[in-house]
């Protein structure tokens, strides 16, 4: 069998079960484009800037559990993709990014659109390859998908020079299995340590489970819920762990951290045993790890041993896959006697959830709108949330019943929501999907309204318009800073006209009394729709 490098790539992708790629054309990937033309099994989405190919692949991966794939050209295409790759790395999203490269005999000569992309992304990819011989492609692809999707998932980049894409290879062999001697992620938790952990849980009077994005990555949502319910231990989550349990689940105490709620933070600091599952003790979630570490024992369950002891020491580390470990713990019959503690937290939680919202003539408060939105969403909907005040408001106020919450938690990449939502819609066109943006983040990827339109997606976009980069404005308004600078969004366009230019209808909301009926109309609208909510620039995430 004789194949070109580009044909090997197509065959390799098919063998990995890839059905969709996100990309942007360019000179050094023309052989791949040619192969894509002739491949009836691979769908393609054209993005409007390469960064969003990464974000779409991310959204796609997060709801399917499959590895997201994007293909872009060399030079600026590759450097534009970097933010997408780094965003995926920080949130451990399985992704294979393929970049074109200049001819291999010219690498290093600074020719047109040449950039050392593997050198650039080494610090924030799980692994990367520069392929210099097409005969290696079958093995490289097999390895790349294996590395991206197993252990702690993450992005893998494959840089393929154009001559390698064109190179003819005779007798191509696709490996069925591969073994990488330096890569053997743990899956099962150590049995002795499982027993120790179960015993520690049995002794605790005020245990709390802190669940993070790793639980989603291990597809352990059901196990987490079963473990919490069978032990009766209250649960707090990080931002990446939001929507692991419905907001109003009796054991869910909400999100911890700098932007978290008081019940969750109290549960964390007052507990006598902290059980962390799939969370890396990020600074936004656990603000003072040294304090927490001194105050209580902690169990740290993570598939990546390097996360244990990186930001906080753990008395009871447990390395392995969250799904497997939670099952091991349940088989062990881990039980906790913590009824009094649970009831105290539940009481506090009820008071927290019952709070009111500020009002101001001519504006709608995002918290109230999000709460009402959450109540109206289908249980299997997905909400893709951007970065800024809108993210914090969504974390705090969106009542999630079964809805999947998706955001850029680690890197905090503005402009993530719309391309992420396009990725979700691409994978699951029938699913109800809402993107939530601010007017700053919306303008970072509003060019992807073209992808929304081209895909025919009935994506709903909520845009909170307050004419300011609100979260930074809040920071600049406090000590040690002296006031806002460079945060007023002067020159903001007419967003309704922008949407209209893409053929997407819009609604504008500036009256608290009309929120419910407008939301009903918005969600019922056929096809895509933009809801512009006028928000007071004075409102803070703490309001």
């Amino acid at each position, binding site marked *: 069998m004789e194949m070109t490098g580009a044909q090997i790539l197509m065959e390799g992708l098919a063998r990995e079960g890839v059905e969709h790629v996100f990309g942007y054309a360019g000179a050094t990937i023309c052989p791949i484009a040619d192969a894509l033309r002739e491949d009836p099994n691979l769908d393609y989405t054209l993005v409007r800037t390469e960064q969003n190919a990464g974000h779409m692949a991310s959204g796609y991966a997060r709801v399917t559990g499959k590895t997201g794939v994007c293909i872009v050209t060399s030079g600026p295409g590759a450097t534009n993709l970097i933010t997408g790759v780094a965003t995926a790395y920080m949130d451990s999203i399985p992704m294979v990014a393929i970049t074109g490269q200049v001819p291999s005999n010219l690498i290093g000569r600074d020719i047109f659109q040449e950039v050392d992309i593997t050198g650039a992304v080494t610090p924030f990819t799980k692994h990367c390859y520069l392929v210099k011989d097409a005969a290696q492609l079958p093995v490289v692809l097999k390895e790349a998908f294996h590395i991206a999707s197993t252990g702690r998932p993450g992005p893998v980049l494959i840089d393929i020079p154009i001559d390698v894409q064109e190179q003819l290879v005779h007798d191509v062999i696709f490996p069925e299995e591969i073994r*990488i001697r330096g890569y053997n992620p743990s899956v099962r938790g150590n049995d002795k340590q499982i027993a120790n952990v179960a015993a520690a849980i049995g002794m605790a009077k005020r245990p709390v489970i802190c669940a993070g994005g790793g639980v989603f990555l291990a597809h352990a949502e059901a196990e987490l819920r079963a473990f919490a319910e069978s032990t009766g231990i209250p649960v707090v989550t990080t931002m990446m762990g939001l929507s692991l349990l419905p907001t109003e689940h009796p054991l869910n105490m909400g999100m911890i951290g700098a932007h978290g709620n008081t019940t969750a933070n109290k549960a964390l600091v007052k507990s006598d045993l902290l059980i962390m599952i799939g969370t890396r003790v990020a600074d936004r979630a656990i603000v003072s790890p040294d304090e927490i570490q001194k105050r209580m024992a902690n169990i740290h369950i993570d598939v990546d041993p390097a996360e244990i002891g990186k930001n906080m020491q753990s008395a009871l580390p447990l390395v392995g896959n969250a799904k497997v470990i939670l099952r091991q713990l349940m088989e062990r019959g881990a039980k906790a006697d913590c009824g009094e503690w649970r009831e105290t937290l539940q009481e506090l939680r009820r008071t927290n959830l019952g709070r009111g919202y500020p009002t101001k003539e001519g504006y709608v408060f995002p918290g109230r709108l999000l709460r009402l939105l959450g109540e109206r969403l289908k249980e299997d909907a997905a909400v893709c949330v951007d970065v800024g005040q809108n993210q914090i408001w969504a974390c705090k106020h969106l009542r999630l019943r079964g809805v999947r919450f998706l955001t850029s938690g680690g890197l905090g990449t503005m402009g993530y929501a719309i391309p992420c939502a396009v990725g979700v819609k691409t994978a699951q066109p029938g699913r109800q999907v809402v993107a939530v943006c601010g007017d700053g983040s919306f303008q970072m990827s509003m060019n992807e309204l073209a992808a929304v339109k081209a895909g025919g997606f009935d994506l709903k976009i909520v845009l909170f318009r307050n004419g300011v980069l609100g979260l930074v404005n809040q920071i600049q308004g406090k000590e040690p800073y002296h006031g806002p600078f460079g945060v007023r969004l002067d020159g903001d366009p007419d967003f309704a006209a922008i949407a209209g230019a893409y053929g997407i209808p819009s609604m504008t909301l500036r009256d608290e009394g009309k929120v419910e009926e407008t939301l009903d109309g918005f969600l019922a609208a056929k096809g895509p729709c933009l809801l512009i909510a006028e928000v007071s620039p004075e409102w803070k995430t703490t309001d």
Partner: protein
Amino acid sequence: MKQTISVLVENRAGVLNRVASLFSRRAFNIDSLAVGVTDDPSLSRMTIIVDNGNNVVEQVEKQLNKLVEVIKVRTLDEGNMIGRELMIIKVSANKNNREHIMTICNICGAKAADISPTSMTLEISDTPDRVDVFEDMMRPFNILEVARTGVIALQKGGGKI
């Protein structure tokens, strides 16, 4: 306190870059890094000396282990390892002080590698502190150039990592 980490890696282009990039990315301080192929040509051994401030060695080990091309990582016990460094040092020398220099070489176990009417080039392979001593002893003769390899090390006894 200095710690010696022995790392077996795939003998492939780009691996050194990955390891070096990891150290700068994680703000770990490297004292020295020496790399060379092993008896198995598919493997290289890196010997890395790090400053173990903030008990960073455990994190260094774990982060190194995450690299796909890293096969094995072991922190060597200082009391139970053979660590050696090679230094080549060029000093000003003439017929008046050559013998004096050779006396010091004999005491320190160094030897002459090259000679010219105005210089001598000497080599020594020893533990880093004894190499330091030799370098200090050469200072009065006007050191022209120094090249040091950084430490390479193996643990003592019959075991292997």
